[in-house]
């Protein structure tokens, strides 16, 4: 209940400073409004997982482990595999995170990442049937936040996508055939924006997030489709702002996708 993203009281001076910079078209860390922080990816980081990725988005750090196990299909989808997502905001990652059951922040985060992957049909779940109606592969996507410096939506989304792309279905371990690469159809990338005063910046860092009035995440695919959106915080957007944000997320998402899939071959990018 008490795990919060924001640090509570923000010094007025910081608010003023960030807005002053925005007037000059720049940001507290010198980035342009559409510039995403540097992304570093290490796939295969956890050997016991079937797929994994340690992702740094600026100073924000997220580790995603994918485990794949046989299980029963849902009765209404007997010929499809299953995917589930979970986020843990462990107290190690921030002084504002507390131990306990998943906070609403963690639940929202997991569900927004889930929606992007599920709605774009990123994983080819139809190829994850072992025995129709009886046994299918269940893909567990567990996201562990290790250092919180803003914008967990994008860090988790990128980490989940790269970990899935890295994953091998462990058929041999369960004696149901040969191992195979987790089949992927699409590569959805979330891009999150924060509204600060009248400015809207991509990939907000912790300082920006702490003074943001409203947040909007748009997840787009490599086909230029929009698969998920989530607005957050107490402020609002005008329709014109939303349209611009969608367009910006399409182009930023494309750049991020090229960058992370190019570098997701097991080595550091």
């Amino acid at each position, binding site marked *: 209940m008490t795990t919060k993203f924001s640090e509570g009281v923000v010094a007025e001076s910081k608010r003023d400073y960030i807005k002053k910079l925005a007037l000059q078209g720049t940001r507290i860390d010198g980035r342009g409004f559409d510039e995403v922080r540097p992304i570093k990816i290490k796939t295969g980081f956890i050997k016991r997982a079937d797929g994994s990725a340690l992702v740094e988005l600026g100073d924000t750090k997220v580790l995603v482990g994918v485990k794949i196990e046989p299980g029963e299909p849902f009765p209404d989808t007997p010929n499809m595999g299953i995917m589930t997502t979970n986020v843990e905001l462990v107290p190690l990652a921030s002084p504002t995170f507390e131990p306990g059951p998943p906070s609403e922040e963690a639940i929202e985060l997991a569900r927004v990442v889930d929606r992007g992957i599920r709605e774009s049909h990123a994983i080819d779940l139809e190829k994850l049937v072992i025995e129709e109606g009886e046994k299918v592969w269940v893909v567990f996507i567990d996201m562990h936040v290790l250092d919180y410096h803003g914008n967990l939506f994008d860090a988790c989304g990128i980490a989940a996508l790269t970990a899935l792309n890295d994953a091998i279905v462990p058929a041999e371990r369960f004696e149901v055939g040969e191992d195979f690469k987790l089949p992927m159809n699409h590569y959805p990338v979330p891009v999150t924006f924060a509204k600060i005063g009248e400015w809207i910046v991509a990939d907000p860092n912790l300082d920006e997030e702490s003074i943001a009035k409203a947040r909007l995440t748009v997840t787009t695919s490599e086909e230029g489709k929009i698969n998920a*959106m989530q607005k957050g915080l107490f402020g609002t957007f005008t329709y014109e702002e939303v349209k611009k944000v*969608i367009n910006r997320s399409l182009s930023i998402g494309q750049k991020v996708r090229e960058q992370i899939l190019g570098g997701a071959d097991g080595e550091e990018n």
Partner: protein
Amino acid sequence: MMGMKSDIKLIDDNGLRIDGRLPNQLRPIKMEVGVVKRANGSAYIEWGGNKIMAAVYGPREAYPKHVQESDRAIIRARYNMAAFSVDERKRPGPDRRSVELSKVISEALTSVVFVEKFPRTAIDVYIEVLQADAGTRVAGITAASLALAHAGIPMRDLVVGCAAGKVDGVVVLDLNKEEDNFGEADVPMAILPRTGEIALLQMDGDLTYDELTNAMEMAMDAAREIYKMEIETLKSAYRGDDNDN
């Protein structure tokens, strides 16, 4: 979107939907305030097959104390589905979906309430879905907005919920349950009718930029219609006595 495949034809040869509506037509909506006497404010809404009740308690001192904000009231919306509200019994209590919806609804309502007038307090907004027929969050936030106004909470605008989406390749307004289950996308929104600001926006499915903006514009147009119903509902609750000289 469930992503299920279906043989049901959701749009017929005349371009009509399975419940006979045009693509840009709302389901019938009925609203009422003052349905929970014990609460500071309350409202009931029937929207298509949805039956939803909302009640407001507060502002009252927020407990536990650590949830208090020293410079404003916190708005705690709780979206809850009754076990019998859906075809297959829903296990009572909060699941991940209702936790998320409660959060985005709370945030959207906070955008209109003058929360700075009531430091350290909580305004509790309880939304009970008694019967669900797709679009429960937007119907629920509409009822919550009525209940807040009815509770005498100061606000800079009302809130109107409305959704649009895509079924059988056609962008449509206000999806019903079949359309939600077998459709291709859903875009729930909450709009501040006076300023046109967007206070809640979610989307899932598969849409091009043009389809998405069509859907949003359809929902925003319909919001004007729903806003008129909100005004009429609030005023008529008191107007009966008013013409009595």
